């Protein structure tokens, strides 16, 4: 019943996304692409932070690594699918290494370690001019061609991004539904108990970072191809915080949180543009209000509504959940 309704809703959403570009302006299609790219990055962070409970402020660094890797490789004549795979694998491995500090430190200490990593990547991108072009960045990144079709048109490229978006969503769903997903959640809720029940928490911590980072790398690769220009400023700590905001606003630990969060963070400035100089202020205010009224994000509100319905049916049952 419920699962079936969910499935139909998802199917409908996918169908809408599939036909949408034909009725939109080029710019709107670009914005949609940007939403999907950032959704992918946020999905990865949602696995690391929302499900496995490992704080990371470095998602933009992985987007940067992925973007530069794919850009430089494709411009050197390497086929783009290979470049994308290379970016994903590279970020997976670097994410694995970044996971090691998480075995020792947690919470705000871990936030600082990952923050420092983001700064480090930024400096490498800016200073290693021979490779990255320094502050000038990389210009003229080619769009991929699929089965001989160029995607220089916005709509063509939209479907490439859409494909990645769908496949990566499905993969993440598969991971979270498997025993791995339960182990990630156990790691977040009570690592010591999980350890005593046979969960190799060291391995799961590293994997949470590695998989989340690989998603960041792929998102970065797509972002480079979408904008066709990258520079170190596209991957600063500010961008990491933006991805974090998407996860938190949508609802960390909810599968659909990142999609909603990214939608809001990407679209809101567009909608508020008419207010001209005030839009950033309005935007900041809205985020503050949301976070105060619902710290668990937008999908947390949905949960709260469900709970109040349940309470009406059975008032005594769920005092604990109410108290949260």
């Amino acid at each position: 019943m419920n699962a079936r309704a969910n499935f139909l809703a998802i199917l409908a959403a996918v169908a809408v996304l599939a036909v949408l570009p034909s009725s939109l302006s080029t710019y709107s299609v670009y914005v949609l692409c940007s939403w999907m790219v950032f959704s992918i990055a946020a999905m990865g962070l949602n696995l690391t932070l929302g499900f496995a409970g490992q704080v990371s402020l470095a998602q933009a660094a992985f987007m940067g690594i992925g973007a530069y890797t794919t850009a430089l490789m494709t411009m050197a004549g390497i086929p783009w699918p290979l470049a994308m795979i290379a970016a994903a694998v590279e970020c997976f491995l670097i994410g694995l290494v970044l996971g090691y500090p998480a075995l020792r430190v947690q919470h705000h200490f871990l936030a600082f370690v990952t923050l420092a990593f983001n700064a480090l990547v930024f400096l490498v991108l800016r200073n290693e001019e021979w490779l990255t072009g320094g502050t000038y960045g990389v210009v003229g990144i080619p769009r991929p061609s699929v089965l001989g079709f160029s995607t220089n048109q916005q709509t063509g490229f939209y479907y490439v991004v859409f494909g990645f978006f769908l496949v990566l969503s499905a993969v993440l769903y598969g991971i979270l539904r498997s025993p791995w997903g339960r182990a990630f959640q156990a790691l977040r809720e009570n690592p010591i108990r999980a350890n005593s029940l046979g969960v190799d928490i060291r391995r799961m911590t590293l994997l949470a970072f590695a998989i989340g980072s690989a998603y960041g790398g792929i998102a970065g690769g797509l972002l480079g191809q979408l904008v066709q220009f990258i520079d170190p400023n596209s991957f600063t700590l500010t961008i990491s915080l933006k991805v974090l905001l998407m996860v938190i606003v949508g609802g960390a630990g909810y599968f659909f949180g990142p999609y909603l969060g990214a939608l809001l963070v990407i679209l809101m400035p567009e909608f508020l543009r008419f207010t001209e100089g005030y839009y950033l202020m309005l935007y900041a205010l809205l985020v503050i209000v949301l976070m105060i009224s619902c710290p668990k994000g937008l999908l947390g509100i949905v949960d709260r509504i469900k709970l109040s319905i349940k309470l009406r049916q059975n008032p005594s049952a769920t005092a604990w959940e109410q108290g949260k």
Partner: protein
Amino acid sequence: MNPVLSVKGVSKHFGGLKAVDDVTFEVRRGEILGLIGPNGSGKSTLFNCILGQLPASGGKVEVDGRDVAGLRPCDLNLLGVGRTFQMLQVFPEMTVLENIILAGQEHKGTMFSRLFGKPDAGLTDEAKRMIEFFRLTHQTNEKAGSLSYGQQKLLDAAMAFMAGPKLVLLDEPAGGVNLTMLAHLKERLKAFNEERGATFVVIEHNMEFVMSLCTRIIVLANGRIIAEGEPEAVRNDPQVIEAYLGG
């Protein structure tokens, strides 16, 4: 036959404090061993050293004749040693069913088969039987955090049993549990011991519970074993009475 657990001269020092001081004992297959002693006598610390939760300062621990030095808690669990902690340890945001499945899943298949196999690792039926065994059926799909304290204690114990361990170390399973629930817990432990041949070491302050459950008792005071034997003998041991009264 090897003892299930053999602890040889284990010590644990916190700075100058000898929390566990040269403790040696064995646990035989199928027995329910009680571990008692005043507050702060080192019982929980001893458990943590045995299970790799804390590095011991000295000594040796063998499970089924195998030296387990350097093994992590998860490795020991996979070898068939289950445990509960003194403080409640459940996964509050997961349902009772998910808590129990988690407790068994790492024992099924390999890392990769768990990624590509069934979401419940084929454990739903077994988990439901375990839930029934601990009389939590009505709470199956409730979040663990919403259960009463006593129910969470039962869930905690159920998790320790889910993987079919040969040895379970229980740290104050009866603490804070009401009388009805307590009788129920004791009956469950006895059933596990008789039906499945599980071996237990139980830390407990509730004397009546320990005396009626255990076949043998070890008494710890200031990190050292001061008495060992059948419940009746230990109860009347002057040294034990002294340790409790003076403690």
